[in-house]
């Protein structure tokens, strides 16, 4: 044993043992993630913004720290004596050799029970199909009337009205006031929803409430409220609490917005969107008319072209041309016809004048006539001694045939 003492490890410093303990505690699986139930005492809020207190029960106490950044996030008001459930990890404050709970989440005691209740009801209603997506109705994009169920004095109503006025002032808003917190709240919310549906029949209903503790929002987990939302004729948009809050009303609603303002946004198009939509509709309108006019113009051109080809005017032009040709031919025919006749006439005249015996006599020929006036054309018509009359150009004289001398080789007796 004495040998052992000789080789004993050197004593640890306080810092070393404290660091070791810290390591041990902070490495523990259970201590890293625990809920602790107790009553607040020795509450201290120094100017640093961090909050210090001791959680106590009948027989023990636990030092607790909430860092400033966590304090700002918590929505619980702490007082000495408040029973709370705190969540966090166990760590060591080395200077004081003190283990303590570093809190990241904190709720009022009883909220844990509420939460269990919440889960149980949620499971039951879910099994009934009340939260089915298939059951949910589409929310109109362009509501004419919006019903609002919320407190008439809360900031939620003002937020919604401001948002609606800025986005979509075309809508008519009917507010059905209801308490949104306290024992009366579920009944009032149910009644407000039912009255809106019966008396106004809005296109959509906004069910809203500003942020609060789980207890504050409890009315929206009431089974009657959930069933009224499901039964509502108008689709329901919820905007309850903050981003992280989910109530059974949110699950039952046709659309869930994180906040009241968000609900107003989901319920309406924005003016900017509407103006854009209107502009594009106008563009389409202009385009459609221009296209229509283009088509009409093109058809007109086509038809006009076809008409032109079939036009009687063209026929008339053709005919006129043909007529011109015919006239030309006639003219030519007439011209050539006249010349021909004239030439023929001349020929006839020449023949006629060639036959005129007087013309022959001009050239010194004579006509010999029998006493009965017969023209004598052959020696066989006379005998010697016959009296004849000889006619010359300028008169006639009587003569007597002395002898007959036929022309050599020419016997005209048969002619």
């Amino acid at each position, binding site marked *: 044993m004495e040998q052992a003492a000789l080789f004993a490890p050197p004593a640890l410093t306080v810092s070393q043992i404290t660091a070791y303990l810290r390591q041990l505690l902070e490495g523990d699986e259970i201590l890293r993630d625990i809920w602790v139930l107790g009553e607040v005492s020795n509450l201290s809020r120094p100017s640093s913004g961090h909050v210090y207190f001791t959680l106590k029960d009948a027989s023990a106490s636990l030092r607790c720290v909430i860092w400033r950044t966590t304090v700002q996030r918590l929505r619980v008001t702490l007082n000495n004596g408040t029973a709370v459930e705190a969540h966090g990890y166990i760590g060591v404050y080395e200077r004081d050799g003190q283990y303590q709970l570093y809190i990241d989440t904190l709720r009022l005691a009883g909220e844990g029970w509420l939460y269990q209740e919440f889960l149980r009801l949620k499971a039951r209603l879910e099994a009934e199909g009340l939260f089915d997506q298939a059951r949910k109705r589409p929310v109109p994009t*362009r509501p*004419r009337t919006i*019903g609002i169920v919320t407190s*008439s004095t809360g900031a939620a109503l003002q937020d919604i*009205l401001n948002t*609606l*006025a800025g986005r979509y*002032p*075309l*809508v*008519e*808003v*009917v*507010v*059905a*006031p209801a308490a949104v917190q306290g024992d009366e709240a579920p009944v009032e919310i149910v009644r*407000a929803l039912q*009255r*809106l549906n*019966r*008396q*106004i*029949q809005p296109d959509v209903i906004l069910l809203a409430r500003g942020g609060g503790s789980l207890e504050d929002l409890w009315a929206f987990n009431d089974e009657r409220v959930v069933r009224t939302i499901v039964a509502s*004729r108008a689709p329901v948009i919820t905007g309850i609490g903050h981003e992280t809050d989910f109530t059974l009303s949110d699950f039952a609603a046709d659309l869930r917005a994180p906040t009241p303002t968000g609900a107003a946004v989901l319920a309406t198009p924005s*003016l900017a969107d*509407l*103006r854009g*939509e*209107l502009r594009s*509709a*106008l563009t*389409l*309108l202009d385009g*459609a*008319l221009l*296209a*229509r*006019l283009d*088509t*009409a113009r093109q058809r007109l051109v086509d038809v006009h072209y076809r008409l032109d080809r079939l036009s009687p005017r063209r026929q008339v032009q053709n005919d006129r041309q043909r007529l011109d040709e015919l006239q030309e031919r006639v003219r030519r025919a007439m011209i050539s016809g006249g010349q021909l006749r004239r030439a023929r006439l001349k020929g006839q005249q020449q023949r006629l004048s060639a036959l005129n015996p007087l013309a022959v006599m001009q050239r010194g020929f004579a006509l010999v006539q029998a006493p009965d006036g017969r023209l004598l054309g052959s020696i066989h018509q006379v005998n010697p001694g016959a009296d004849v009359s000889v006619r010359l150009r300028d008169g006639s004289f009587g003569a007597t045939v002395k002898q007959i001398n036929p022309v050599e080789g020419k016997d005209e007796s048969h002619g």
Partner: protein
Amino acid sequence: MDSSQIPVEELSYEQAFEELETVVSALEGDQKTLEESLALFERGQALARRCAELLDHAELRVRKLSEEEPELPEEMDEEEGD
């Protein structure tokens, strides 16, 4: 509901815009005579003017649901849809 017989000044924004979309589709459909198309176009422009005017001058109307307000008869349901 067919709003095309109603003067544009009496139409709500939704009615006017819905009819404007109908007019555009009808014009694009090209089934109309030119005269009908021009009439449609003029109607469309009037509808667009009506919409713009309503957007420019709209003010949110808010009222509180009063106890005395009569309940609407159930038969209204079906007509309400369109």
